[in-house]
């Protein structure tokens, strides 16, 4: 039988100190639930920096390419039009007029691509159930999730270590 501990703290700084203390003892903290981003908790519990920024760049460059390709096809290749004598036969020479749409389309693809990736990676989508262990974690409480499965220590040893930290509340659940 595996056990999961939900350790609640009532302050973000207490949470960080407690997390550091537990991690120093070799305990793995599975996750932290907080009402706002607690700065500095990520390196303590081993959350790596997200690569969403790289994804956004790739989406944006896709947008740039698509915009230029589209405008080349519409305005140069398929049906060149003489508009105020602007060069209608060459993408490079007509490029200044194409910059605004290229920029807008890059931003469009970058922003939406990133937002969609973010929601998918988080699993936060319309109709998804909430998975925070306690409703107070979206208000003013901070919960640390520790499982026996991820730790070499026994449930009792873990509980003893957890109880040494200035916690607010502790709830334990069994699961298979």
């Amino acid at each position, binding site marked *: 039988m595996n056990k999961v501990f939900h350790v609640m703290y009532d302050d*973000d700084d207490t949470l960080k100190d407690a997390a550091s203390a537990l991690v120093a003892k070799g305990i793995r903290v599975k996750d932290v*639930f907080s009402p706002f981003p607690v700065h500095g908790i990520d390196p303590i519990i081993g959350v790596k920096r997200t690569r969403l920024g790289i994804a956004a760049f790739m989406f944006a460059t896709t947008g740039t390419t698509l915009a230029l390709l589209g405008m080349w096809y519409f305005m140069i290749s*398929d049906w060149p039009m003489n508009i105020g004598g602007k060069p209608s036969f060459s993408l490079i020479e007509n490029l200044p*007029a194409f910059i605004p749409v290229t920029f807008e389309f890059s*931003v469009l693809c970058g922003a939406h691509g990133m*937002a969609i990736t973010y929601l998918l990676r988080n699993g936060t989508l319309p109709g998804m159930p909430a998975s925070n262990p306690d409703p107070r*974690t979206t208000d003013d409480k901070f919960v640390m999730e520790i499982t026996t499965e991820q730790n070499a220590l026994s449930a009792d040893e873990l509980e003893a270590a957890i109880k040494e930290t200035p916690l607010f509340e502790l709830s334990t659940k069994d699961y298979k």
Partner: protein
Amino acid sequence: MQREAAIREPLILGDKSYKDITDDVVGPIQGDAPIGWKIMITISSIIAVYGVGCILYLLGTGIGVWGLNKTVGWAWDITNFVWWVGIGHAGTLISAVLLLFRQKWRMAINRSAEAMTIFAVIMAAIFPGIHMGRIWVSYWVLPLPNQFGSLWVNFNSPLLWDVFAISTYFSVSLVFWYIGLIPDFATIRDRMTKPFAKKVYGLLSFGWSGRAKHWNRFEEVSLVLAGIATPLVFSVHSIVSMDFATSVIPGWHTTIFPPYFVSGAVFSGFAMVQTLLLIMRKGMKLENYIHVKHVEYMNIVIIVTGSIVGVAYLTELFISWYSGVEYESYAFINRFSGPYSWAYWIMMTCNVISPQLFWFKKIRRSLVATFALSIVVNIGMWFERYVIIVTSIHRDYDPSSWGEFHPTNIDIGVFIGTLGIFFTLFLGFARFFPVLALNELKTILKSSGENYKKAQENN
């Protein structure tokens, strides 16, 4: 923990805890609607319905019901469009540009400023839509394969750039706003007791749980979106200005337009934010979060952008004379001394002189004066667009076709109607949405909260 200099005024007043912030924002959503809100939404929805009626009449009859004439082919429609888009610039500026500059005071105002942006851009989009007359073929502005031979839209035209700019701006602002809203909807979800409300906020919150990894991604997304929304803000109104600047009409054909329009947009947007927030903070008892210091910061932005606009007016005037082009000079002489000189001088007074009053600290920090001046600025900025548009075209190269523009009841009805729709949407937002960015405010409580700052000083 981040520390802030003791000399800085705290951003959150009173003895607040994390829980108090939640209660202050979620409380009004849980309680019954106040009577003032009911009165305001009734009035604004009546106006909105009247506006929708005018729009339907216009679409059914054709744009001949506007007062457009031989020379004035663009009047209130595009004036209103530019005015609304301009107002729509403050929200993203506050949330994106100020985020990049790490201005913490934005956190109390960004949520409602962004809501205002989104509603204002929707209002703006109505005007080019109905100006087409046949709104049901508005998809023709998109480069879609079609049965008319190889007929594509013209990518050399600023009007098409506008299609891309406005739709990108609208959708990116909406996404930016919504991503910030998700965690706050989760806060409301977890506090709602009525099952239906819980279900609705549960759906809106997308199952947000506040995991450390999710917050890590959240902050990255906010930062990157802010990074790409910043040039977007500047590009949108630059492109709007190019609708005019790339034409050959004297009075429009000027290279100063992009920076001039962008600062004008920020100027009017902040004025509208002031108008809305000064009422909202009172009505929703948010005085501890949006207080005199926030108002003062916004007024400083108004002085800066208002002065840029003033310099632009004078530069325009000087260059029209200095250019030696007779038509260009006439366009400007006609502006300040012709049949529309009254509009020109209203614009000059409201936009150039009135914001300069904010140099006085007393006025800058007075809520009553700020509210009055914010309305003056909004009026002035509407007249700026009216002056630029109508005075430049009502007299063309052929004096026999000279005339003046007179708005019809439909012109007026559509404009007033958009104000009604806008206020209805904003009031709906104020009632059902978290009006402050809860998750962001909580991050600055310890560094900028009054009680925490006092405790720090005493140590």
